[in-house]
């Protein structure tokens, strides 16, 4: 049991009190508290967007909290940045790999100290001998002089852990360390974690996978909507069901849409054992007319990759797609759009969706310039009318249609993204994470918009990692795990039962 006595209060290495952090339009953390002791392996659980990564980044000095206290080894501290955190004994293994691909394994392990001594002579032999003990600790059986290029994902993961150890960390943060490695390698990782714990290192372990919590961790903290769902509990006093319910909670502020009878009379898009460059597992599904087909999965479960291949942005390898019963071999996005009337509202508005330095009008009209021109000459009036029409229809708030979209808020940028596909009169629309980074009010508007589109006969594939959004909008849900469609379920619209059903399917996969 977690019971505090004055004597063990001294071995609290990290103590966060009421940490809050907001980003434009999003309250990422709202009064989160956390205690981490020497020799403790604590799991940090939560859905996508619950605030886990933000919390890790605050501990690691990447972000600074807006409010709340950060105590390290008993003293309140203000970290100046990631290097400060590292010099105070906090080692971080981020979810994404952070390596210098042209350096050797040894250089990557000692990267922090190499970077620290800019004017000293870098002695390769010394680096190799200094890196070796840390590599031994994580069981990396390769030479320190080996290039990191060509290492397996798991080996790279171990290099990163060795690096975290090389700074003599007393606290190690692992952000989804098993996301990119195979199951037999997970066992090695667990051995390392136990070894570290026995040496008194405190470990904060972020994961989505419940079985790892039970196998590896001592205690568990669950976040939901940027808040603690309750006090930290000992792993042996809880079980899968309790944790799932804690992670999901109840839908508290979404007005549910009424259940509807979609038109759904015939399939408009069918994929049959479809394989592409970046989605190596055969995927089979069909999308019915006027349906909202939800694709649920964790971030990185291969949904975007499949979508990109379907619209011809990535190369298809095997299998086939049919649009309205006709075989569709789509080689380019232009073809998907102009011939098959398939549009893709990208996940990353700023990088893939919008030409930020161009005006609202130009961003909306980009898909229809081809139609608006006669002998190469654009009909500027028609362009402006189209933009005006969708500004009114979607309620895009901008001082002028000539305003550059870079100056609009996230929600309005998203509406511009959607508007350009509506303008192109798409019949099939793939919408990827439509409300990430968007405030609650606008989120509601975008949900209504998606529903209205479907009602009007547009067939929609909705990619979302937001459980509420999924249950609220989808007619039918496909579950993606590591690039494969593992299940299909009709959506009852009842949040509690649906979310638990989906979560179970994910955590046992």
């Amino acid at each position, binding site marked *: 049991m977690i019971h505090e006595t004055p004597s063990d209060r001294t071995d609290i290495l990290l103590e966060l009190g009421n940490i809050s952090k*907001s980003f*434009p*339009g999003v*309250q990422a953390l*709202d009064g989160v508290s956390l205690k981490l002791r020497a020799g403790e392996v604590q799991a940090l659980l939560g859905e996508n967007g619950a605030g886990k990564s933000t919390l890790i980044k605050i501990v690691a000095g990447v972000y600074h909290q807006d409010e709340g206290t950060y105590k390290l080894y008993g003293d309140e501290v203000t970290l100046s940045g990631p290097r400060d955190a590292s010099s105070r004994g906090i080692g971080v293994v981020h979810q994404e790999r952070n390596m210098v691909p042209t350096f050797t394994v040894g250089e990557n392990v000692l990267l922090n100290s190499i970077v620290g001594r800019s004017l000293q002579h870098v002695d390769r032999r010394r680096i190799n001998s200094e890196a070796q003990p840390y590599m031994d600790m994580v069981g990396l059986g390769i030479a320190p002089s080996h290039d990191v290029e060509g290492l397996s994902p798991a080996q790279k993961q171990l290099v990163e852990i060795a690096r975290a150890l090389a700074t003599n960390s007393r606290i190690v943060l692992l952000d989804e360390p098993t996301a990119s490695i195979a199951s037999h390698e997970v066992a090695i990782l667990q051995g390392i974690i136990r070894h570290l714990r026995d040496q008194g290192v405190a470990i904060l372990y972020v994961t989505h996978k419940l079985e790892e919590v039970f196998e590896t961790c001592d205690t568990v903290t669950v976040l939901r*909507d940027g808040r603690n769902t309750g006090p930290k509990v000992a792993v042996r006093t809880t079980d899968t069901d309790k944790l799932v319910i804690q992670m999901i909670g109840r839908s*508290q*502020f979404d007005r549910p849409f009424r259940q509807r009878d979609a038109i759904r009379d015939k399939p408009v898009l069918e994929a049959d054992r479809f394989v592409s460059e970046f989605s190596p597992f055969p995927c089979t599904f069909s999308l019915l007319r006027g349906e909202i087909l939800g694709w649920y999965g964790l971030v990185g479960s291969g949904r975007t990759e499949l979508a990109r291949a379907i*619209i011809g*942005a990535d190369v298809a390898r095997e299998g086939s797609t049919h649009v309205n019963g006709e075989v569709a071999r789509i080689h*380019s*996005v*232009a073809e*998907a*759009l*102009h011939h098959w009337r398939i549009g*893709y509202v*990208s996940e990353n508005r700023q*990088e*893939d*969706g*919008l*030409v*930020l*330095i*161009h005006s609202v009008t*130009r961003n909306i009209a*980009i*898909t229809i*310039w*081809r139609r*608006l*021109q006669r002998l*190469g*000459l*654009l009909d*500027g009036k028609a362009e402006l009318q189209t933009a005006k029409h969708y500004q009114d229809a979607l309620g895009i*708030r*901008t*001082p002028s249609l000539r*305003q550059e979209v*870079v*100056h*609009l*808020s*996230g*929600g309005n940028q998203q509406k511009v993204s959607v508007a*350009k596909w509506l303008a*192109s009169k798409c019949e099939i629309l793939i919408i990827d994470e439509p409300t990430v980074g968007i*405030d*609650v*009010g*606008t989120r509601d508007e975008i949900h209504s918009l998606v529903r209205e589109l479907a009602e009007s006969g547009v067939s929609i594939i909705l990619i979302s990692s937001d459980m509420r959004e999924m249950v609220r909008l989808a007619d039918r849900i496909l579950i993606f795990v590591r690039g494969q469609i593992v299940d299909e379920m009709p959506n009852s619209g009842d949040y509690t039962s649906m979310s638990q059903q989906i979560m179970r399917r994910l955590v046992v996969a």
Partner: protein
Amino acid sequence: MSAEKNTVGNAKHQGAVGKTLLARGPNSAIMAALLLSVLLSIATPRFLSIENIHVLSYGIADLALVAFAQMVVLAAGGMNASIGAIGGLVTVAVGGLMEGLGVPPVLAIIGGLLLGVGCGVLNGVLIVRMRLSPFIITLATASIFTGLNLGLTSGQPYYHLPDSFRSLGAWNVAGVPGLLFVTLLYAVALAFLFRSTGIGRQILAMGGNSRAAELAGVPIERCLIVVNALSGFLAASAAIILTARIGAAQPSVGEDWLLSSFAAPIIGGTSLAGGYLSVPGAFVGALLLTLVSNGLIHLQIDVFWTAFFSGLIILAAGGVDRIRALNSERLDREQRRHALARPVASLGQGTPTKA
């Protein structure tokens, strides 16, 4: 909504001069050119003489075209290091056709323009097919074009061009060199192309964000080839105008174009990152560079200092560009703060969970 209005209001609160200077586009270049002209006319009376203005007009006619040739590829998010080399090759081709093969000037000019387009298409196709950066590709083709040029001519100019061709260079309309009108015609056509045609818009969208443009169905590869062909065409035009003006086809044409081809559009506000161009800006940028070299002559400073002052101007233009970017980022941050204020307020009212 009010948040957006506020931010736009803030921008308006800046001083009028500051705002004009920082607005994206050629304003700062125009002011610099005016200032420099006033200073030069005070410093030396000969600056405003009819002869000198004539000399200036000639210089701008081809330099502006060189600037346009780089401007279009910069706006498309690329660059072209082979503009000078295309110019050199086209020069000797036109000279060789007329002097060596006796081809009539009109046909020789058309041949030269086609050669320029061909060189540009080659650049475009290589960029599309090899998927290397435009810098590497055009550095290589520049060397190939220059090598062809010097290999075929052994560096010997064609001095005996037909009189009808040479008279083009001396052509005057109301005391203004006719070739300057040709350049102005190009400027109008380019402004129209990028403002009012589908392909022009697509090229700008590609330059602003090629991934977004591709996902919106813009034919990226075609745009790349078209814009490089256009760049080659403009470089060829500059070379032909210069040849007509000099009255001889020199293989060394274009050797000194690289610096000014970048400097003039950048001074004029064309974005190095792509997605935006200003035709008047590039023109004024070319004017400014011409004024600098012309002013140095009048102030009796060694012409070898031209490069030094051109460098200073580029740095100054780059500085204005940077301030412009920082200014825009600041506006953005304010915008975000306003945007943030809204949802938090609505959360407080509408959701029991946040109570």
